[in-house]
């Protein structure tokens, strides 16, 4: 949520048992008040970010990593090294960020922002990071290099 610029304050998580009616009423009130402070959310302004987030969360990479958590922290990886949870968290966050940025680039390219500079203007990532991730997207056949236009490389989403 934070990464996509939507803000973590719009999403609340709470534990309420079936006997705790009072607590539920409190949680409901707190959530509504906190979201009220955030103001209305315009999904159109975040269309690209939401699409990228959906692709990231629904994609296989993140699911694989999350599914590996217990195996990596309790049993160890293929080299027999056990990961501590903090280390796993760091890796998970960097994978999440990378996948999200990749999907953001992919969504921008599918919407017709075909050069590195245009993509950068659209999504506000630095150009070096975009070129680097574009190369990655090319490897997995999600984006293809289409040729040069006025000495500017043009990409297309597959």
């Amino acid at each position: 949520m934070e990464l996509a610029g939507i803000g973590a304050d719009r999403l609340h998580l709470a534990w309420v048992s079936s006997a705790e009616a009072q607590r539920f009423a409190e949680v409901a009130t707190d959530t509504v008040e906190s979201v009220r402070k955030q103001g209305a959310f315009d999904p159109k302004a975040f269309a690209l970010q939401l699409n990228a987030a959906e692709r990231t969360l629904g994609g296989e990479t993140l699911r694989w990593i999350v599914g590996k958590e217990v195996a990596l922290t309790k049993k160890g990886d293929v080299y027999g090294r056990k990961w501590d949870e903090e280390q796993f968290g760091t890796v998970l966050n960097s994978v999440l960020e990378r996948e999200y940025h990749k999907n953001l680039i992919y969504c921008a390219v599918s919407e017709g922002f075909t050069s590195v500079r245009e993509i950068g203007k659209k999504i506000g990532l630095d150009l070096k990071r975009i070129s680097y991730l574009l190369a990655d997207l090319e490897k997995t056949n999600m984006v293809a290099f289409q040729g040069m236009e006025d000495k500017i490389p043009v990409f297309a989403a597959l």
Partner: protein
Amino acid sequence: MENFEPKIVAFLCNWCAYAGADLAGVSRLQYPSNMRTVRVMCSGRVDPVFIVKAFKEGCDGALVAG
């Protein structure tokens, strides 16, 4: 903006928060009516994609309670 009523999608676990919400209703506790409840059989059933989708459809906030 003064009278802004946020739309909130609440994913409630059938066995915990949903029953809690039910009890809150039965015991006539006051709580805001901005919630649009989605009853799930377990809060573990809630996929992050559901939440992104809720925001895509134009809700202002989301609550997952279990």
